[in-house]
């Protein structure tokens, strides 16, 4: 119980004391998470769209695979990326192990299946409704993908946020490929793991509260962007 109250007190001190180390960690975490999500979207949005509108042999198997990969254990991904990026691994010469770049790659591998699978589901539902109309307008399947992605942007944004949540919450992969190096690859989650290891449970909990607060702020911001870009939801409500 006292740990809980101390946790909230610690979170308060951390955030409003503008602790330089903490802000460094927050900024690095956001950068890594953001880069990983952008990379995942570059792959996952078109791939999910393609899986939704194209029909080919083995499509179902690919969908099942992508859905299954949503549950990839971060530790396994971390280990695989470590082995690949290690100096003795195939991409060792890139020399990006234990850097933020390695963490971005590991998280992108975790997030891409989420973005892909959720996008596929969203776009496939839309495609059922839009297929005849878009075909009538002369839109090819390929040309339809960006149209559908934009039309499903509310749901797609939710899929992206789900991916961001996965990236922000995971510790297993980044701690292996990043090394939790102070001032270099220490993120919110690896710092929480470290402080838990030090027995500083209140501080660890405080960091956790900061992390949750950031997640709430980010989602609130996304929500406001959505409201602003799509006033029709409000208008429809007014019409009814």
């Amino acid at each position: 119980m006292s740990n809980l109250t101390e946790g909230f007190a610690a979170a308060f001190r951390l955030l409003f004391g503008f602790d330089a180390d903490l802000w460094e960690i927050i900024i690095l975490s956001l950068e890594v998470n953001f880069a990983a999500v952008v990379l995942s979207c570059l792959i996952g949005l078109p791939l999910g769209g393609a899986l939704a509108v194209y029909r080919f042999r083995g499509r179902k198997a690919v969908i099942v695979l992508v859905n299954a990969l949503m549950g990839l254990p971060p530790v396994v991904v971390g280990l695989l990326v470590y082995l690949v990026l290690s100096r003795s691994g195939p991409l060792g010469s890139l020399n990006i192990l234990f850097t933020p770049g390695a963490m971005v790659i590991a998280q992108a591998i975790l997030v891409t299946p989420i973005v892909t699978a959720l996008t596929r589901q969203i776009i496939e539902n839309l495609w059922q409704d839009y297929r005849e109309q878009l075909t009538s307008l002369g839109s090819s399947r390929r040309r339809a993908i960006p149209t559908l992605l934009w039309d499903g942007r509310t749901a797609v944004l939710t899929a992206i946020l789900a991916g961001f949540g996965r990236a922000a919450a995971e510790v297993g992969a980044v701690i292996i490929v990043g090394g939790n190096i102070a001032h270099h690859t220490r993120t919110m989650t690896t710092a929480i793991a470290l402080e838990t290891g030090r027995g500083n449970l209140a501080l660890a909990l405080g960091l956790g509260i900061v992390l949750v607060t950031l997640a709430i702020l980010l989602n609130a911001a996304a929500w406001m962007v959505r409201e602003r870009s799509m006033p029709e939801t409000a208008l429809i409500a007014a019409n009814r």
Partner: protein
Amino acid sequence: MEAPSILPLALENISLRHDGQQILDRINMLVARRRTTVVLGPNGAGKSMLLKVAHGLIEPDSGAVRWSGLPGAAAHARQAMVFQKPVLLNRSVLANIVHAVRLQGVARAKAVHRAHTALDYVGLGDMAVRPARSLSGGEQQRLSFARAWARDPEVLFLDEPTASLDPAASWSIEQIIVELRREGRTAILSTHDLAMARRLADDLVFLHRGRALEAGSAEQLFADPKTPELAAFLKGELHW
């Protein structure tokens, strides 16, 4: 309208089965230039399917759709279709039309100009910035007509365009159909509404359980039905 005509349209021996049911059964049909052809029949006769096959949205099991001279793809660009339930993109009224025009390879500025003209054409000129889905049912269907018209089609497929509308909205849609004919466009209209068929049809095809029982000039068929089915339908006694 200066481009070479894609008409007449000939449907040759079109058959289509779906879920074990014969939807269309050896249909032959000829559509002439600058006339409004009404495909008349009770619900479930296969009217929508016939229009979609002619428009190239559905591949028939057997038979051929022949456009005069031009191969299918080139002919498709000169057609447009309005569906019973309008499928509008989740964006502004104007953007819906711009999207459709841009699919024809028209530059953005020109597409915007054309979209404004199209909105004036259907009387939605002051609704350009409204989200499409905040419009009433009748306005949405008028937007569908504006979108079809903006593509400057020679042939329009109109699939029960007033079936889900109230009388006032239906009336405004009928005015648009009359105007389309005055411009020299060819419409193929499916309906089960006898009164509407009488008002709009130049030619008539009577469809019953997937078979074209009668075809010819509307005047003649209304005056002198050859089959008991059409006779019953004209008396309001045939419901399926």
